[in-house]
């Protein structure tokens, strides 16, 4: 009796809080959980009339079709390889630039570099595609302008796949290096000055200080970020691979990733079966990777684990 009474007053106390959570709860339900339930359409012959619940099951037809095509090999290879290269190069450049930024003692200069180098990160990929076009356009691009002024043949970049792995890597780094710099810089400034002062008294050179103080102390941050990024290795930057190569069909062998493929199959080819199957693989493998990665981080450094 007493207990029941206490419980009742409790609920009344908590009610306003639950009410506060209602809009966010409903949003996540619609935006995140309904699509999760919708993953089932990968196993269905989807049509809009019957919707995602009413459409008929078609066993594994979508998957048999997808796995039998060459597309799946290309998009998996591109997605994973680009991500690996982006992660490693991004880490090396990010750490290097953060260390250099830390060497700059003039506050105004430091602020200036930070602001300018972060600018590309702020731009949408549509804008980046325009900037790339200014250099790469077949007739009017700056590179071709220079080539023809030198009497050399023009290069039709949007039809020549061999250049794109480098172009995409360059643009990816150009856009994200400011992000990496800020990230690593913020953990650099946390390192106590005492270490460096002691090292200088011992006559250590700058290089030795970086090698034996900065890098070892950055190691936990670096490892955590590397592993976390590996959890997202199945997700590609849709904008980079769709906008920047101008969705050029001649380049698909080196620019098509899971995300661009899913988009194209869904919206252009209207092949919901194949695109939902590719999306399903991406979601499930991605989920397993995130869990694995989190388990690894948990072992290494509990504080940095996501859950």
């Amino acid at each position: 009796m007493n207990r029941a009474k206490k419980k009742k007053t409790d609920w009344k106390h908590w009610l306003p809080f639950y009410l506060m959570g209602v809009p966010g709860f409903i949003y996540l339900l619609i935006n995140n959980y309904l699509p999760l339930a919708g993953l089932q359409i990968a196993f269905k012959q989807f049509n809009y009339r019957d919707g995602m619940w009413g459409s008929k099951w078609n066993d594994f037809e979508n998957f048999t079709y997808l796995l039998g095509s060459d597309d799946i090999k290309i998009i998996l290879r591109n997605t994973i390889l680009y991500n690996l290269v982006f992660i490693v190069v991004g880490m090396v450049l990010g750490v290097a630039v953060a260390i250099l930024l830390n060497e700059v003692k003039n506050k105004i200069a430091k602020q200036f570099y930070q602001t300018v180098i972060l600018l590309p990160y702020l731009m949408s990929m549509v804008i980046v595609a325009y900037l790339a076009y200014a250099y790469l356009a077949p007739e009017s691009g700056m590179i071709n302008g220079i080539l023809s002024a030198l009497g050399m043949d023009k290069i039709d970049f949007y039809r020549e796949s061999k250049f794109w792995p480098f172009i995409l890597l360059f643009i990816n780094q150009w856009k994200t290096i400011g992000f990496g710099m800020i990230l690593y810089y913020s953990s650099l400034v946390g390192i106590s000055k005492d270490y460096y002062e002691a090292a200088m008294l011992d006559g250590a050179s700058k290089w030795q200080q970086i090698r034996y103080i900065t890098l070892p102390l950055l190691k936990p941050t670096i490892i955590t970020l590397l592993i976390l990024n590996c959890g997202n290795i199945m997700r590609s930057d849709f904008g980079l691979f769709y906008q920047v190569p101008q969705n050029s069909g001649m380049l698909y062998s080196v620019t098509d990733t899971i995300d661009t493929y899913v988009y194209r199959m869904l919206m252009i080819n209207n092949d919901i079966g194949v695109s939902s199957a590719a999306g399903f693989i991406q979601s499930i493998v991605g989920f397993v990777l995130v869990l694995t990665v989190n388990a690894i981080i948990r072992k290494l450094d509990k504080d940095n684990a996501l859950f």
Partner: protein
Amino acid sequence: MKSRDEKRWGIASHLILIILSLLALLPFILLIVASFTDNATAVTEGYSYFPSKWSLDAFVYIGRNAAMIFRAYGITILVTVIGTALGLIITTLYAYMLSKKRLPGRTALTIFVVITMLFNGGLVPTYIVYASIFHIRNTIWALIIPSLLMNGFNVILVKNYFENSIPAELYESARIDGAGELFIFARIALPLSKPILATVGLLMGIAYWNDWQNGMYYLDDASLYSIQNILNQINQNISYLASSGVSGVSMVDLPTTTIRMAIAFVGILPILIAYPFFQKNFAKGITMGSVKG
């Protein structure tokens, strides 16, 4: 006294950072110069930092078509303001609920958010949910609701701020004074959380301002295009400009080579102007968002 070693590092750092700064800026400068280049010059010589002939033609054509640009800007601003405001409200409310340590079911409600950070249905089911269950296509809501309104990372960020940066005694003493929970939330928690709300709001605002994907997925109706959607459309197909009503101008007469750059310039101008003012907050948001909450 600086050692020689230290001096050398100082100079090298400046040098490399200046080069990187130039690399970051040069594409924007080329875009701006290209938009002021004479069209025929751009066609024959290519875009260049030093065009032999300058011209305002591209902007004259854009000026004739200003209605389209203004409309798109109006939509971008509307979507950014409504989306950020709504998103900030539901994020803050949910985060505040989670910040109450003794709330029954708190763990389950937290896991409910964390799962959304780990597991993602992807484009196909998301598109079908919004297009065929909620019929969001070709409405302004298509630019506001899908994906962008609220995300788990922001909820956790705000929740942690409520937990760690506002002393529990403040809540207690207000409660003893007989203040209701809503009053406490509005008059104590919110005012003390301005820094985190500003940062999260800025990140949301930038996401809305830059978004082109929702428009590409859910809009056929060009009258709802944001500035990013217009840029996307022109990038896919330069003839979109002619077809979208530059009155009385045929495609042949359009200075397409430079107009493309000019329109992109108009598209980024506001953000270039505003950036220095929010740069610090933006950098802060990045560091907070990336280290988990």
